[in-house]
């Protein structure tokens, strides 16, 4: 179990994390969602002991990361956002190194290396130098290095960034398998579809604060059954959005170049919406409809898209 309680981290006047609390139970994947710069990685760094928190506490499998660091770290696996591998050495040699860092040795280590290589689908490439691997293979190896010691708690900081579909599937399957084995997992990402697929519980973080938390269904309820319509064009008379609101739409963004609204049955009511927009605000150049999902919720909560909010 990973317990994060009232965690804050500031760098001078900049508050990177502000009173963040959540718990990832054994056998649960807890998703930490947010755009770049939201505070996800800072949270992961504080939880893993890479940086010390300004306030608050972190418990890993019952051990406080600040006061009982060695025991807490023995129970923890970390998959950092940036690769941490010796490019010149082989996959096997890298696994030997990281296994040894977690106190494994001898035949027990060798046995675990072979197991995790199978789990991430790299058993046939284990003798090759990492520099010859594709980006996806490196990500899989990066993940494998963190699970050699069968950690009770696992932190994954955007493990699928820049990964090909095959590698992504390998990784997601391996994470689900760990969950089934009872590992408490914290998973940060800005890929909503991944979070919706594998996370049991979620917290949406922005500007260092948790702005929504709960199960995927809990959060969907917050969005409602409404879909997101994004209209691009050249608009004027922006001081009056009542015409849109009369359509029972919730206006999320209303600017010269873009209007975003949440509305039920978007596909049926699209013509009606476009008529109002073209008549009252200006010419439309592009329209898109997005089904209600976590991304819609994020936009609703922050007024910004998840991937470009940084």
């Amino acid at each position, binding site marked *: 179990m990973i317990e994060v309680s009232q965690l804050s981290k500031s760098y001078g006047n900049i508050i990177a994390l502000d009173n963040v609390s959540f718990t990832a139970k054994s056998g649960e994947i807890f998703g930490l969602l947010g755009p770049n710069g939201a505070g996800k990685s800072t949270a992961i760094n504080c939880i893993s002991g*890479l940086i010390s928190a300004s306030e608050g506490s972190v418990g890993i499998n019952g051990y406080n990361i600040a006061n009982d660091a060695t025991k807490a*770290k023995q129970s923890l696996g*970390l998959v950092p956002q940036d690769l941490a591998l010796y490019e010149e050495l082989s996959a096997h040699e890298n696994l030997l190194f990281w296994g*040894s860092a*977690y106190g494994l040795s001898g035949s027990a280590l060798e046995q675990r290396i072979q197991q995790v290589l199978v789990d991430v689908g790299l058993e046939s490439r284990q003798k090759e130098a990492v520099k010859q691997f594709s980006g996806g293979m490196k990500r899989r190896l990066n993940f494998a290095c963190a699970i050699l010691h069968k950690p009770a708690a696992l932190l994954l900081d955007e493990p699928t960034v820049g990964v090909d579909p095959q590698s992504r599937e390998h990784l997601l399957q391996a994470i689900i398998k760990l969950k089934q084995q009872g590992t408490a997992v914290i998973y940060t990402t800005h890929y909503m579809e991944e979070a919706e697929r594998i996370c049991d519980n979620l917290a949406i973080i922005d500007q260092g604060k948790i702005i929504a938390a709960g199960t995927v269904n809990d959060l969907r309820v917050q969005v409602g059954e409404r879909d997101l319509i994004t209209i691009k064009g050249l608009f004027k008379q922006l001081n009056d959005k009542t015409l849109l609101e009369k359509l029972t739409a919730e206006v999320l963004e209303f600017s010269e170049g873009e209007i975003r609204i949440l509305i039920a049955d978007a596909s049926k009511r699209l013509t009606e919406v476009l008529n109002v927009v073209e008549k009252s605000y200006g010419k439309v150049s592009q329209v898109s409809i997005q089904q209600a999902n976590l991304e819609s919720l994020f936009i609703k909560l922050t007024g910004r898209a998840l991937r470009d909010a940084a």
Partner: protein
Amino acid sequence: MMSFTRTVAFNSIKKLVKEKWHLAMFLIIPLMMGGLFSLISGSDGQPKPVGTLLITDHDDSMLSQLLVGGFKQGPMAEMFISKKVDHDAAQKIMAEGKASVWLEIEAGFAQSFLDEKPTVIKLVKNPSQNILPQIAETAVGVMADGGHYIQLLFATELKQFNNLLSGKDVSDTDMALMSVQIKHTMEDLEQQLFPPQIKAIKEKKVVKKTSSKSFVYLMFPGILFMSLQFSAQGMALEFWKDKSQGISRRLQATPSGLTQYLNGKLIASIFVYVLIALVIGVLGLLLLNLNISKLLIIIGWLILAGLVLGSMMLFVCLLMPTEKSASVVTSAMVFPLMMLGGSFFPFDVMPKWMVAIGQYLPNGYMLQSFNQWFIHDKSLSVLTIPTIIALAFIVVFWFINKSLLPKFVRV
């Protein structure tokens, strides 16, 4: 957790072995530099460059042999290899440019000298050479001047001597008279020359005993230390490579931590220092006839000196904000350290002001101490205090670097 220290050491060594050229450069550059310096400065065991003096003696008298003998004695003998050849052979050799100078003494040289008649000594110089032919010309000039003064002082005696040589009968009375005359001439000269009108102040100058060791022998410790400095820099920069690859940062999230990582890296650097000592030391065994026991001491001293230099380089690397700045600053340190610290040029041939600075630099101190034993043949006990100082230096810097490492990893 000791096994992790061992793993770090093995991994670092494996990495170095896989980057063969990186490892080789630690050795190649110093060996190349040492080789070039040795070639420029000359070395024992090989003939020093000397000139060839051709002699054609048509007179073949005692006097002509005395003249030629001047080139076969003292410092002249070190500069010239004398060859007696006939006129035609000499002409041919000179035309081919294979000799520095040709000295031809005409027949009747001795007789003319004793008769106080003009005579000719022909000196032919090789125009493609400058120094050695000039030396030969000056030497012949000095000999001719000497002969002239002898003629002035001992004209009568020389005539009698000439008669003696030419087989004329010289009576015992004449012989005794010749001796007396020489004695009187010397006494006359003595009155003019003594007591000396110029008071000579005899200053006993204490001349520092110069080493009889060859230049290669003197250069040997410098080459070792040059290699050591390149490798100490390279091993310190490994910390930056690991940081840029995210290794050291991730290590902080493991129970092993950074202290074992630091120790593992130090063990790997010891391996590199031993390798350097072995490779260059074996060359020393072959070229300088060092014995095995000396090699063992060299290995020990290089480990110590390597750790001193490595600790210092690591300290600088850990303070630098980027990998590039660490590389630039340590490179900027290495070359002046080598210049001043006796690696490029042996301390024995360096200007005093440079030695004064260099001997107190960490590398200079370690090298100077080593030289006391290796070059000046002092007993091993001369290394006792430097060993204590070096160990203290290593321990202090280990603690400093250990405390800097977490911040270095995080930033």
